């Protein structure tokens, strides 16, 4: 009798252990706020993340199977579209905005430059359906997935049955995107007292805290708000940002305050990619701000920075680069998953 109990006990411990290795605990870096994303509704597991990663890199999500999420969000440029002011999508169509860098998405409540998307799960629907981006339809994507052995297998692994739905597809994509956490830059090491800024970086940090941090707030380097930062309107695009969503005049010309993490790699800058270099961005803040009704209070008074001070701020901004993030093999093209399809 006792023997039996011991055996059952051992088996259950084994099963429990197996169960726990499948679940992935979301790591919140020290001194960071709690994430906004509700993980209880979509608990991370190894297999769901793997599925989401395959979907992220699969051009099947587009009408003619040419454009994947990664086409405009490539890892080496902090998951944005390097070198293109306006991102281009299907059939070389040029979009209206510069794709946003993807990182630390669990801490974001609203998505896109204008906050049109209210939840990470439904974010992917926008590029999938956009005529200039992927020009596809989520129902059609699901049908395509259902016809592929690879996804029958990956969905089975992730959900214990091979039923492929829109909900599961979107939630798996979220799972992968949630893992894109950047918290290992030199700045982070300095905050953890593992290393020190150079004199120039330290000076830049002091200037940054005085002039930039009210919007680009630590540790995420964004206050997650929508602000008018004084960019003159591009009359070819006529993009009024948040106003197009809320139709509220107070939101005219307001755009998402983007994170500055990995800013060294996510050029060009601004919602329309109008600035190629960080020095251009700083010159805008000192000399180019256009005053109008919705301009952020933070920019009402002129920002004064000498050219040496600008160089110091840029030196500090470069400490926000996170090589571990940019070259993390867990975020790259999932060769192995796609290989299983051929086997």
């Amino acid at each position, binding site marked *: 009798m006792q023997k039996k109990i011991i055996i059952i006990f051992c088996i259950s411990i084994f099963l429990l252990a197996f169960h726990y290795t499948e679940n992935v605990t979301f790591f919140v870096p020290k001194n960071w706020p709690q994430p906004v994303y509700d993980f209880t509704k979509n608990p991370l597991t190894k297999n769901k993340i793997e599925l989401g990663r395959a979907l992220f890199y699969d051009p099947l999500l587009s009408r003619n199977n040419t454009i994947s999420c990664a086409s405009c969000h490539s890892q080496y440029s902090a998951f944005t579209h390097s070198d293109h002011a306006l991102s281009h999508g299907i059939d070389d169509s040029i979009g209206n905005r510069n794709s946003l860098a993807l990182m630390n998405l669990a801490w974001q409540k609203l998505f896109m430059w204008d906050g049109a998307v209210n939840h990470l799960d439904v974010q992917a629907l926008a590029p999938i359906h956009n005529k200039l981006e992927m020009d596809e339809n989520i129902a059609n994507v699901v049908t395509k997935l259902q016809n592929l052995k690879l996804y029958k297998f990956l969905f089975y692994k992730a959900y214990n049955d091979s039923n492929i739905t829109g909900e599961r597809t979107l939630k798996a994509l979220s799972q992968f995107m949630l893992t894109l956490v950047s918290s290992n830059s030199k700045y982070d090491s300095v905050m953890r007292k593992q290393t020190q800024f150079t004199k120039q970086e330290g000076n830049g940090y002091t200037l940054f805290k005085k002039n930039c941090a009210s919007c680009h707030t630590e540790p995420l380097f964004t206050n997650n708000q929508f602000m008018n930062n004084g960019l003159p309107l591009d009359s070819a695009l006529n993009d009024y940002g948040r106003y197009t*969503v809320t139709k509220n005049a107070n939101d005219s010309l307001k755009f998402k305050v983007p994170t500055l993490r990995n800013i060294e790699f996510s050029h060009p800058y601004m919602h329309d990619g109008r600035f190629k270099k960080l020095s251009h961005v700083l010159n805008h803040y000192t000399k180019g701000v256009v005053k109008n009704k919705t301009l952020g209070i933070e920019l009402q008074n002129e920002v004064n920075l000498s050219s040496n001070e600008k160089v110091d701020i840029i030196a500090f901004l470069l400490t926000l680069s996170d090589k571990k993030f940019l070259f993390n093999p867990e975020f790259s093209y999932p060769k192995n998953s796609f290989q299983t399809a051929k086997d």
Partner: protein
Amino acid sequence: MQILKYNWFFYFVLMLNYLKAQTNSTIQFYFTYNSKPLTISDSTLPLLDSNGLQISNLKFYCSNIQFLKNKKVIVEEKNSFHLVDASNSSSQKINVAITSKLLFDELKFNLGIDSIANVSGALGGDLDQTKGMYWTWQSGYINFKIEGKSKQCNSRNNEFQFHLGGYTQPNYCLETLIFSLADKSLIDINVDVKKIIDQLKLQEQTKIMSPSKDAVLLSKKISTCFEILK
């Protein structure tokens, strides 16, 4: 001793079953145009009036069904969302489990999706984003959708498209429908499509495709086009 124990349990379960005897109440939606059943299928669509009116798509969400007695909720279907589609007869029938011996005198449900579900990310069942009732460039469910053609429409191919939704004020589009009715297990609700078309005023406008004041006003008008069949 053992058998006695199980007997006890058996009676207990039996008693519970008796107390909780469930019956189903069925809500059945009918779509009619000039009192004739409206059919939407893949084959040629019937012409409904002298302007060549054709309806190719008519869908809406029915959610948060409640049965009331003396204004008190006695049965409530929580977190339930039904996509009712004029082209799919099985979607037009909704069964709600009701404990027998509970009498109701009022039925209440929402036409559309509440603001909480609208900010809850990817959802399943009838709320799955593949159902064609979700905006993609801007988050939010479409509560009510009607599409078709009419010579009254001054638009490309004489087409009209009305996608009504919006989950934030001042453009919150959710309508609550309340019907007084005698307690019965089969509740027939007619959707008067002629009345809906009349509300659209096709000669003046042929589309609404985003949350707006117009969408709120039209949703209110459309909510009056549902009636209990006696």
